[in-house]
């Protein structure tokens, strides 16, 4: 999932906060309380998801809930906007959509 070498974002301040662990595509990621899912993921790697149209990885764009380019899913299949979802302890997300159940 996390493309490129090294993180995309850089922390500049607010380093003293309790840590929170979450799982991203099964890997344990440590974040700080108050981080969004987008921040947590992009402090470890350089991508949030792959474009459905094969034009490469994406890592969000507007950070204000308008562009919808930062979708991730919980392991149960609930869609989250990574830029506006705060991390919570034990959150388990995947960066590819969970296949929909076949009906009938």
């Amino acid at each position, binding site marked *: 999932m996390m493309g490129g070498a090294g993180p995309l974002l850089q922390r500049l*301040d607010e380093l003293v906060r309790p840590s929170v662990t979450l799982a991203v595509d099964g890997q344990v990621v440590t974040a700080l309380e108050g981080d969004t899912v987008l921040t947590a993921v992009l402090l470890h790697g*350089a991508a949030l998801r792959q474009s459905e149209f094969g034009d490469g990885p994406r890592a969000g764009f507007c950070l204000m809930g308008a562009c919808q380019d930062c979708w991730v899913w919980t392991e149960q299949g609930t869609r989250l906007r990574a830029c506006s979802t705060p991390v919570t302890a034990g959150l388990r997300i995947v960066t590819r959509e969970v296949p929909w159940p076949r009906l009938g």
Partner: protein
Amino acid sequence: MAAPRVIVVGAGPAGTRAAEVLVAAGLRPVVIDEAADNGGQIYRRQPAGFRRRAEELYGTEAGRARAVHGAFSALRGRIEHWPQSLAWQLRDGTLQVERGGRAHRLDFDRIILATGATDRLLPIPGWTVPGTFSLGAAQIALKAQACAIGRRVIFLGSGPLLYLVAAQYVKAGAQVAAVLDTAPAAARRAALPLMAVRPSLLIKGAALLWRLKRAGVPVHHGVAPLRIEGDSRVSGLVFRDAAGREQRLEGDAVGMGWHLRAESQLADLAGCTFAFDEVSRQWLPRIDADGRSSVDGVYLAGDGVRLAGADAAELGGKLAARAVLQDLGLPPPAGIDAEQLRRSLARMERFRQGLAVAFPWPGDIIAKLSDDTLVCRCEAITAGTLRRSATALEAPEMNRAKAFTRVGMGRCQGRFCGIAGAEILAAARGEPMQAAGRIRSAAPVKPLAVAIEVETP
């Protein structure tokens, strides 16, 4: 008789001031906002547990931010605050809202839409490569997450936010590779007579430039961006400078934006009349001097309609709420001098015109984008596809082009490709941009889960 039900959508500067006036008149408005906390984007609050002072977050605007936050806090218990709630459809006196996975139908007597704006973007080759963010996003990363979008950041675009965000990055200790402004240096001189109506803002602007200069950040005026380089992440940006030379900058992030684009979808769904605004080169809902739209009961305030900035938004919010009270036959609110507010807004409008002259929207750059440039990020539609819809398929305007190509049909609903798309379509047809129209809004204005529970009354 039951008290009239008034809804305010948006808890930024416009929505906060509107709600304040309504509460002072004895009403209990419903205030709906997508964020967990009030402030809007401009005065967005940092999460609980963050400790930076308002001066660090909002700079010279710290006093205003504190005042707006304080005003909203004072309304608690006297408004019905719906945070983390999405108003997604507005028709015939009913607002549809999703809150916590539940659907709500809210009937209203009057509604004030203070829905704000996003960055206005133009596409350039490579703008989907990770590490490329909007200017607003670069600022939110800093303000709300205390993060920079990269180790060495290139800022590209035009308008006051370009310089503000770059200066904020410098102040926060981030490395800024350069500021690339598509506006030629001469444009700022031409705009001075208009911008002189707000000398304090000119001084603030000069201070930002001084901070960038002192930090040794190169500022280029009159550039044409050519491409963002990198496969899985940004490695640099190539541009043509004002002298026509091609230059390459090293950097691992790009923050880009050209002023603002109004969030006007709910006004559109309500049936409000729009007009093409020559100043901002975009379609905006039409309002009277106080914010009344063409639809009875629907009022507009802030950057969702005027694009004149946060302080103008506060004044517009007050005026819209005052108009609501007047139209309901209630006594005028105490302490509001409508004539003075209108005069102040007129002055701010003049400044906005000056900004548009100083930092013009580079429609010519968009018209010349190469055919393989991705215009629509959501559906990966290229400029070439859009041009072919204009020439081979004879799409006369954006809605037809959308049907032919899926441009603007994706999950952002044209927020980030609609304006540039209209430029490309119009240029391909040899017409002015406004001839390409605007993408009609569709409900829901943002994606909803397929399964939301319906609240039964």
